[in-house]
């Protein structure tokens, strides 16, 4: 079709011009140069101020805690929104083809490992590139594995939803304790007020409330992503509108 061709050509012309324009801007931001300003401050002060050796984690949880709280919220919205949109009076899984014994057995065997990986990742967030989000995602993966292997598997929303809420409430509460103890919302009271773990920098029990928050985030993200998966794989029953 001619119209189709024109559309494609036009699109290509458009995106090329737009691309050139963006490139023109990026040209002023040379790649690989050290332009750090606030970033430099973080690198130099992160261990002393937060107890974390992973500067990204410290930025995520401490310095830019609002972003992370927002990020948690965004995921919560997604999980809530998906549940709201896919809500029907009766929904269930309609998959027909059961996984083979290889898959089901494999899933059963892998489940605890994957969960442990998840836990490992979120608890080491201040030491390694992990953190609450990848850890939580890994935990959700464990459940996804069950959904994938078993056509009848379903999570229990009565447990997952309150758990998700509880983790969120916990996060905000930790922040509010900071407000009460240190005078600032999301203040790291464990590290800065109580000074716990100062001798442990680089080891597990350090970095103030980062591990606590990451446990909560891990739980929350895990339950949320699982909830999203659950909602996505279910379909409304006949007459279940």
């Amino acid at each position, binding site marked *: 079709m001619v119209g189709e061709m024109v559309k494609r050509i036009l699109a290509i012309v458009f995106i090329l011009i737009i691309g050139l324009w963006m490139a023109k801007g990026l040209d002023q931001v040379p790649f690989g140069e050290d332009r750090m300003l606030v970033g430099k401050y973080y690198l130099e002060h992160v261990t002393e101020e937060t107890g974390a050796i992973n500067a990204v984690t410290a930025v995520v949880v401490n310095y830019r805690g609002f972003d992370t709280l927002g990020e948690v919220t965004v995921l919560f919205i997604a999980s809530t929104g998906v549940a709201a949109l896919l809500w029907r009076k009766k929904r269930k899984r309609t998959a*027909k*083809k059961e*996984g083979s014994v290889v898959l089901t057995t494999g899933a059963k065997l892998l489940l605890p490992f994957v969960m442990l*990986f998840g836990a490992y990742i979120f608890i080491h967030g201040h030491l*390694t*590139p992990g953190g609450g989000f990848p850890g939580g995602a890994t935990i959700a993966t464990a459940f996804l*594995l069950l959904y*994938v292997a078993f*056509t009848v598997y379903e999570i229990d929303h009565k447990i997952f939803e309150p758990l998700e809420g509880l983790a969120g409430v916990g996060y905000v509460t930790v922040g509010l304790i900071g407000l009460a103890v240190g005078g600032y919302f999301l203040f790291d009271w464990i590290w800065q007020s109580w000074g716990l773990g100062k001798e442990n920098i680089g080891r597990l029990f350090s970095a103030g409330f980062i591990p606590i928050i990451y446990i909560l985030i891990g739980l929350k993200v895990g339950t949320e992503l699982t909830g999203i998966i659950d909602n996505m794989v279910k379909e409304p029953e006949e007459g279940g509108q």
Partner: protein
Amino acid sequence: MIEIYLFLIAVAVILSMYRFFRGPTTADRIVAVDIMTTLTTGLMVLFALHYRRAIFLDVALVYAVLAFVGVIAFARYMEGGL
């Protein structure tokens, strides 16, 4: 030395991409993805050594887990088991 291996594996990944884009069936594409993820896991491990940072191994591990489950999910979706 490591750079050579990195390069070779990268070449392998790119070669697998051929299958991904070429198809012709969905199954072919998923197989290509599966292989690519495996190769990429190896690549990541090698990168960890290249940068001399053991912490990157965690990244490879998480990647392997997610990739595995992802591939299986696609496979099951394709056969109607999801």
